[in-house]
């Protein structure tokens, strides 16, 4: 019997190619979104800690005037690991006005508080490796030349790096750069002008503050790992909040997408369940057959979705990591595959159980004859819409869409959330535009890039859902389209009914998205500690683009399914089961 069920399940996949394809398409989009959400979430989690771990960060950093003092601090009780103190000297950047720079002379093997390479050569190297945010502020990239005021030395920029002890420039001054010890001696031959850094790790990291307090007054500038973290998190908090918000939005959209899929599959299976009962399969065998089918499709979708998510994740992880001054998060792993595939498979299998249970309540004959699930009574909304004098094609399309009101609501919800994320991005851009020119900001240059990239991901998922939902509607309504053509609807009217109805849902969703997006921005702004007096929201003209753009976007992506619907020959359509 198992072989028979397997054969039936795979025959079902082959015979319902469109439905199977749509299932894989939607489930893949959902799986990819889960992988992306996990990746974005991982990047936002403990960004400083990851950098600290990568740098083998110092529990205490002491910047003192003499090498002897630095050595003395490094040999105090409680120190577990130390490096030879590192010399550094201050210089002024010639090309960048009065930007002050601390150049540290690294040894070949720096173990504690080593800079973490982000681009180009790893420090120390021939030339200079500059701290990433400092390089961005000065407009210096790998391959450019750093010139120092009053010194006849041109330093080629060979790499960029980050350090857990250096918050973002220009909030933290001076800027930071790393050279070799030999290069430092050329830049600043007068050793009396050098400072020395003792980077030490303690046997008890929790005792860092007590250790720092035990140092004699005048021991120089002392920083514990807690100080470093607090300063770095000031930079990372807005981005962390935004990443968390987008992770939640992505997961809600995924839920809506999968719920649409499960509902559509249940509707499509109704008649087939009747046929299988008629040929003698028990409800349990029918459930097993559909479960095999759904599991096979879910597995294919998981692999595709994981691959797409894993390919896209670095695009998102890179700006996220830069925004958070953190190291990139670990690449998608087997855990991500399980996390993406598990919920998809579970929901698909739960959907099978629910639909088979519901359909076995009806007699086999009823299920076969009705072709689809019996229509549900019209909702209040559908009755109200029926009274609105809409153009005929639009009215037909809206009635069709509202006949599956749960699906329409979930679709509208997904569009509204995507719209809200766009309103959020517009408000953030308005805040950035409202900053006085040249003023240092907590918001990094990468943050808008990150937010727009996440918006594009959301738009892509919503577009995939829209195409799939429109194709599902076409598949379910093929016979109705044939009948409508027989009565006298033109192909253009058929296409308009489908596109118009989806665009109408998008318009309503966009109207909801505006207050939702503004509200979301206000909440995130307040949690990030923003001052209400400085709050800037998206201007009205950019908000007006949302209800204009949403229906146009939806009309564009549902155009292809609508064209398919309009081209179905009427004679074939009326025979379609």
């Amino acid at each position, binding site marked *: 019997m198992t072989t028979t069920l397997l054969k039936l399940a795979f025959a079902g996949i082959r015979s319902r190619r469109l439905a199977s394809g749509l299932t894989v398409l939607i489930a893949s989009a959902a799986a990819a979104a889960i992988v992306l959400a996990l990746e974005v979430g991982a990047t936002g989690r403990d960004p400083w800690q990851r950098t600290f771990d990568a740098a083998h960060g110092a529990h205490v950093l002491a910047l003192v005037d003499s090498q002897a003092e630095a050595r003395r601090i490094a040999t105090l009780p409680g120190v577990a690991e130390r490096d030879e103190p590192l010399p550094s000297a201050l210089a002024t950047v010639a090309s960048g006005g009065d930007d002050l720079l601390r150049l540290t002379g690294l040894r070949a093997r720096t173990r504690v508080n080593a800079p973490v390479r982000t681009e180009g050569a790893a420090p120390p190297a021939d030339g200079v490796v500059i701290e990433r945010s400092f390089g961005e502020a000065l407009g210096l990239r790998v391959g450019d030349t750093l010139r120092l005021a009053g010194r006849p030395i041109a330093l080629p920029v060979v790499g960029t790096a980050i350090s857990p002890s250096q918050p973002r420039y220009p909030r933290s001054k001076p800027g930071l750069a790393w050279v070799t010890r030999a290069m430092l001696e050329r830049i600043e031959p007068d050793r009396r002008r050098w400072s020395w850094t003792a980077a030490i790790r303690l046997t008890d990291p929790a005792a860092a503050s007590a250790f720092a307090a035990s140092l004699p007054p005048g021991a120089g500038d002392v920083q514990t790992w807690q100080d470093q973290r607090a300063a770095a998190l000031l930079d990372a908090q807005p981005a962390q909040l935004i990443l968390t918000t987008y992770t939640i939005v992505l997961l809600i959209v995924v839920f809506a997408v999968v719920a649409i899929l499960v509902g559509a599959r249940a509707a499509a299976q109704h008649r087939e369940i009747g046929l299988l009962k008629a040929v003698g399969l028990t409800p349990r065998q029918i459930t097993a057959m559909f479960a095999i089918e759904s599991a096979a499709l879910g597995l294919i979708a998981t692999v595709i979705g994981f691959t797409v998510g894993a390919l896209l994740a670095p695009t998102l992880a890179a700006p996220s990591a830069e925004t958070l001054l953190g190291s990139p998060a670990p690449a998608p792993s087997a855990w991500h595959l399980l996390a993406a595939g598990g919920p998809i498979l579970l929901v698909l299998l739960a959907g099978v159980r629910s639909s088979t249970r519901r359909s076995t309540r009806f007699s086999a004959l009823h299920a076969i004859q009705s072709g689809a699930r019996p229509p549900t009574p019209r909702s209040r909304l559908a009755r109200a819409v029926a009274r609105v004098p809409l153009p005929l094609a639009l009215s037909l399309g809206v009635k069709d869409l509202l006949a599956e009101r749960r699906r329409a609501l979930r679709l509208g919800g997904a569009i509204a959330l995507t719209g809200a994320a766009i309103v959020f991005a517009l408000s953030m851009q308005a805040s950035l535009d409202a900053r006085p020119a040249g003023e240092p900001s907590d918001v990094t240059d990468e943050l808008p890039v990150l937010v727009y990239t996440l918006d594009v991901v959301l738009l892509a998922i919503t577009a995939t859902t829209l195409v799939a939902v429109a194709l599902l509607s076409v598949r379910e309504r093929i016979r109705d389209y044939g009948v409508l053509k027989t009565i*006298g609807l033109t192909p253009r009217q058929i296409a308009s009914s489908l596109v118009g109805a989806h665009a109408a849902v998008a318009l309503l969703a966009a109207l909801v998205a505006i207050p939702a997006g503004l509200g979301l921005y206000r909440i995130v702004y307040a949690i990030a500690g923003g001052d209400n007096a400085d709050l800037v929201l998206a201007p009205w003209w950019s908000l007006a683009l949302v209800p204009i753009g949403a229906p146009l976007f939806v009309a564009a992506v549902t155009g292809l399914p609508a064209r398919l619907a309009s081209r179905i020959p009427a004679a074939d359509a009326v025979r379609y089961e």
Partner: protein
Amino acid sequence: MTYVLEARGLAKTYDTGGAEVLALRGVDLAVERGEFLAIMGPSGSGKSTLLNLLAGLDRPTAGEVRLDGDRIDRLSETELARLRRRKIGFVFQFFNLVPNLSVLENVELPLLLSGRGRKQARASAVELLSELGVGDKRAVAPALLSGGQQQRVALARALANTPGIVLGDEPTGNLDSAAAREVLALLRAARERGRTLLVVTHDARVAAAADRVVTLRDGLVSDETELEPARPVALPFESAERP
């Protein structure tokens, strides 16, 4: 003589995954205005294919179809849709009412498509439904009606724009005897009001009510029989409602 509907050398070939199926092999047919023509034949003889081609729902592989003397087989999909709105009513075996529309909305639809105002369309649809004995069902969903009631609604929809021709594809094929009798009576009543009827059927009673019976076999006309004129009919529900 100009026929209301005419087929010349009509052929249709279906390509079913590499194998060609000859559904029609050159059918000539002419239907006079006001005539009731029944098309009979065994399953697979090409009856429904012929009806679809005559209604412009499908395109012939060869031959031509003329409606009121004009060729329609070369018209675009849009032109055919507009033509059907005005001139052709269609009744299916399985009723094919749009499930998401109420009974009234189903009947209103062709009226609205032909440009009638909302109020006027509604009034005409209500009148037509009452005339066919389903006026009290106008607010309900089609799925909640019996087969006979659904076919009456389908007939009301087909007659809404007072088309010159009504085409039926086994209109009594899915009904019990009583409902089939009622539908047949309605078709004959429509014919008496000047409609041309062309009905594909397996039902001998429907065929017996026709003026002429054309029999198809293997995609060709194999027989054609003129029948005696039928007696005028009274609508079954009319006799009950108006004694």
